[in-house]
């Protein structure tokens, strides 16, 4: 089982909930904008505390309200690729990639940079990158942290349309270089199909 998620949270007057046990390596959460998909990722990542439920990722229980278990974000080992990317503006690309690096178990920069096509960007500042480049670096940074799973929030949203196919293809091949399952949030069903993902509709 890759993801076993059963969470609810009250957000103002809105209730955000998801209950799903996923088997596939890539799981796509699909729903219209504003439905709370990001909140669900945040609950999985430990950035938002669910009112109740449980989060089990790759066999590891990260949150369980019945057992009063709530692992802090920093200890969950989840590689979160944010929609707004959140590269550290004061660190060069190389240092962004190495920020969460946990040697020796995780991928090395030498392996990863060519796969992501960012080897030529290592000495640049994040502020000088294009949308697509920044997205690749954000994915690389998450992968370098030796995560037990990747969480991706609309990773194609601010990418040049011509680059979308490339990045999508790259994401599809992530399980080939690293055994991590991916929880992928999008509003675009087509993306999910192209990733050959297990689809979870949120309404």
């Amino acid at each position, binding site marked *: 089982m890759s993801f076993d998620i059963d969470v609810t949270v009250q957000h103002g007057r809105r209730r955000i909930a998801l209950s799903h046990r996923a088997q596939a390596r890539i799981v796509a959460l699909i729903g219209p904008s504003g439905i709370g998909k990001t909140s669900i990722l945040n609950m999985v*990542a*430990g*950035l938002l505390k669910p009112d109740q439920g449980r989060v089990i990722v790759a066999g590891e229980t990260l949150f369980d309200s019945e057992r009063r278990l709530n692992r*802090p*974000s*920093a*200890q*969950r*080992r*989840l*590689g*979160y690729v*944010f929609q*707004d990317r*959140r590269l*550290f*503006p*004061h660190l060069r690309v190389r240092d962004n990639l190495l*920020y*969460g690096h*946990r040697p020796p178990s995780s991928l090395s920069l030498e392996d990863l940079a060519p796969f992501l096509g960012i080897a030529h960007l290592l000495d640049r*500042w*994040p*502020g*000088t990158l294009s949308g697509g480049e920044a997205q690749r670096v954000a994915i690389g*940074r*998450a992968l370098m*942290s030796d995560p037990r799973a990747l969480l991706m929030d609309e990773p194609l949203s601010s990418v040049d349309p011509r680059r979308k196919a490339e990045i999508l293809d790259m994401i599809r091949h992530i399980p080939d270089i690293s055994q991590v399952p991916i929880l992928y949030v999008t509003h675009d069903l087509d993306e999910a199909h192209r990733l050959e993902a297990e689809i979870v509709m949120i309404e």
Partner: protein
Amino acid sequence: MTDWNISPEEWTVIGLSLKVSLAAVIAMLPISFAFAWILARWRFPGKLLLDTAVHLPLVVPPVVTGWMLLLLFGANGPIGRWLLDWFGVTLLFRWTGAALAAGIMALPLMTRAMRLSIEAVDRRLEDAARTLGAGRFRVFRTIALPLSLPGILAGAVLGFARAIGEFGATITFVSDIPGETRTLPIAIYSALQMPGAEAAVSRLAIISVLLSLGALLISELLARKAGRGVHSHVL
């Protein structure tokens, strides 16, 4: 025409002013940063009270601040007595006392500048760091601190400018002792009391204006850098 021959006594005054202001800023740096951090990040009952207390030296007459320092740090004051008994140290009539007075007067400005820059740090970057395995201290050291650094430096330089100009609290607390507590503003004031010292007054006045102007300029440049939300291209 101003006579630009700066006398040895005036050089002493300038050197002392720089020494006192530098010591004031260095001593207040951790304190003002702690206040700034608490005011920017913590939520607790009584926060408004702390906020007001930190800003008090900005609005209370400096003479009153000096008098309160006298009460606390004087030979019979609770802190002054303790310092004397345990360390044999007194701040009264010493340059260290002048630095304390200048530091207290600079504290609100320093805290304010630093607080703004801490508030400008994007918390989402800190969340991102946490998901990458960084604990609280590492997030602080590698994200919050470097991103607020221009504002911290701007606060320090602003504090330095304020300390250079400090008069009321200083003369009340440590008086006017040449070579020990006679800083630029106090020297200008004493020179004004003496007939025939107009040239000295203008020399010292111009020097203080230049020092303050320089410090303010540097502070403003740093604050702009902080306000732009980062040095991503330039660092």
